[in-house]
């Protein structure tokens, strides 16, 4: 009997996943210490795979953008900037003996990458401020509760409020955070964890597909 390739691929993948699941479960539970050596080998394979995937991603990125530059596609200049920056960092790390800890690479990181990333992330504040201005309003149907919660926590976190408000205010906000908010968060965590567990089991048992 000749099985179709798709059938073999699907069930082979399922078999590998289930085997890894069983081995790691046995190792974590401590029931069968002998499997630890096998599990360590699996971890090492995972390490290799992840490293290779990272390299593959970089190569694919470069090939894609080099192709865009070669074809003169739209916004090819951005691709040129990307390839140039990538090459510059790579060369700076390779030509110096200290590698990633070389002064040039550290300067690139400290003077270019870190401020650039921080600046992009800081723009998030303006998005948040615009959203708060637009939606945290008492005239919004659900905005009153959200506004009340935001005001309570904002005032409690404001350092200057320590000099004005009594200490019981902090205790009251702390109770709100510790009891109702925490109950909600616990429910969300438990619910999402259970759903993840069930989804994982369904996937392993072949009842769900990606």
């Amino acid at each position, binding site marked *: 009997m000749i099985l179709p390739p798709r059938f073999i691929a699907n069930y082979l993948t399922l078999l590998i996943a289930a085997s890894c699941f069983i081995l790691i479960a046995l190792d974590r539970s401590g029931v069968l210490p002998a499997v630890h050596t096998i599990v360590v080998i699996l971890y090492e394979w995972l390490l290799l795979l992840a490293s290779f995937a990272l390299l593959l991603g970089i190569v694919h990125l470069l090939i894609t953008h080099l192709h865009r530059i070669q074809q003169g596609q739209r916004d090819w200049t951005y691709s040129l900037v990307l390839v140039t920056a990538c090459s510059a960092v790579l060369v700076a790390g390779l030509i110096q003996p200290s590698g990633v800890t070389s002064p040039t690479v550290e300067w690139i990181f400290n003077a270019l990458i*870190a401020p650039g*990333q921080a600046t992009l992330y800081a723009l998030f504040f303006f998005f948040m401020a615009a959203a708060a201005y637009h939606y945290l309003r008492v005239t919004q149907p659900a905005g009153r509760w959200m506004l009340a919660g935001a005001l309570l926590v904002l005032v409690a976190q404001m350092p200057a409020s320590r000099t004005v408000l009594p200490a019981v205010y902090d205790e009251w906000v702390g109770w709100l955070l510790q009891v109702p908010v*925490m109950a909600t*968060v616990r429910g969300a965590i438990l619910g999402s964890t259970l759903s993840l567990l069930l989804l994982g089991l369904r996937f392993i048992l072949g009842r769900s597909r990606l």
Partner: protein
Amino acid sequence: MNVMHCPHCGTTNRVGSNFCNRCGVNLNSDERTVGATSSPSPIAPLPTSRTRQPDVGKWPDAEPNEAGERAEFPVEEEQAANAPANNSPSSVSPTATTTRRLVAGIEGLLDPLQIANEGSDQPETLALPVTAEPFAMSMEQVRRIRGLLTNDPVLLDRPGTVNYQPPNRLHLPWLMILLTLAVALPILLDLFGPIGAPVQWPGVAEAHTLIDTLPADTTALVIWAYDAATAGEMDLLALPLVSHLLARGIQPMVVSQLPGGPAMAQRLFDRATAGLLADDGVQLPADRALAIQAGYLPGGAALLSWVAQDPATALTRHVPASATDFLRTDVALARPALTIVVAAQAEAVQQWLEQGQPLQYTPTLAFTSAGADPILRPYLASGQLSGLVSGFDGAFAYQQLRTIKLAVAEEALLNRHLALQNWGHFAVLLLLLLGNLAAWGRGGTRG
């Protein structure tokens, strides 16, 4: 591409799909009925009932009816379908009812049945021609009826003009200028100094006490889970921690699962070391490395189990050769006395608590951004986290608990951020006030 059409809504689906992409109906149950087509035909043919030849015998598998006769293949059903005008209740025999129940739903699923002819050696194949039925509807008709029954109704008396109210203008440029000025001007002009102090939330004192009571020369595993994007907040938080660890003589073993994490960690350790070296009251160990930078560990959360079980093996895959010998020979490294997760996102802490901590049995501290605090606070209450320090509030409170000060510039930076916190919160409160005043000014219920 081979496609199949959903028997319920007619949507084209890939052959082999279990459920319809649009309506979610189980396609496997009707797979044979609908069948696969190799062309994207818009409407699949309806399954039609098949008729048998008049001279063919009875169905061998049919159960005997009440009269002791075997039910025949739906002759009566076929007759009823072909002559609807005569289909009165009296004209439908009990046999037909029984037969319909027996074969209903499987007529279209069965392959042409072969029945051995008792009179000859050659088996005779039943010819089952497809006949048009007066009751048969096209797929389009079926789809329309189902659409009428399932979709939202369309209002025929819908007003011709809709009273559309345009959304409020946000005046975003002015808004952002106001925000920037509210924060920047007091800082640049040094109008006001730091006022007040941040509140000390639960978890900060516990974290400080735990580190303060660790014996010197022990090892602490530090999982560095932030990079340059969130360094503005996280550096403030991590600097007192790293300074405290180094001043106590605890050797951090730093590993990161972010590509930019090791560089951030190295930068911060340099700052903390410089601050401690400037303090005459602090003696740093000279016979060993202050910290072990284990570098970048790819592989995601799955490898945290390995790090927890066997850090000496897991982390020596990446460390420089100079540190490898130490890692392999140091007994304390096999079981770090403490694990500290320095993370901008709550997921990094959760992953360690789920994957690593149950295998390591050591206390875990979390130093996180303020945004991660609400998600992680239940873990502190349950005891999975031994301490939680989050946001600028936590950083300031943690540093206040220490007896050793940071470098002068770092302390000045911390105080400057205290003033920034005040003005930032004030700006946001002002923003909320303006937004609500604008909403009240319009007098409507829309935002």
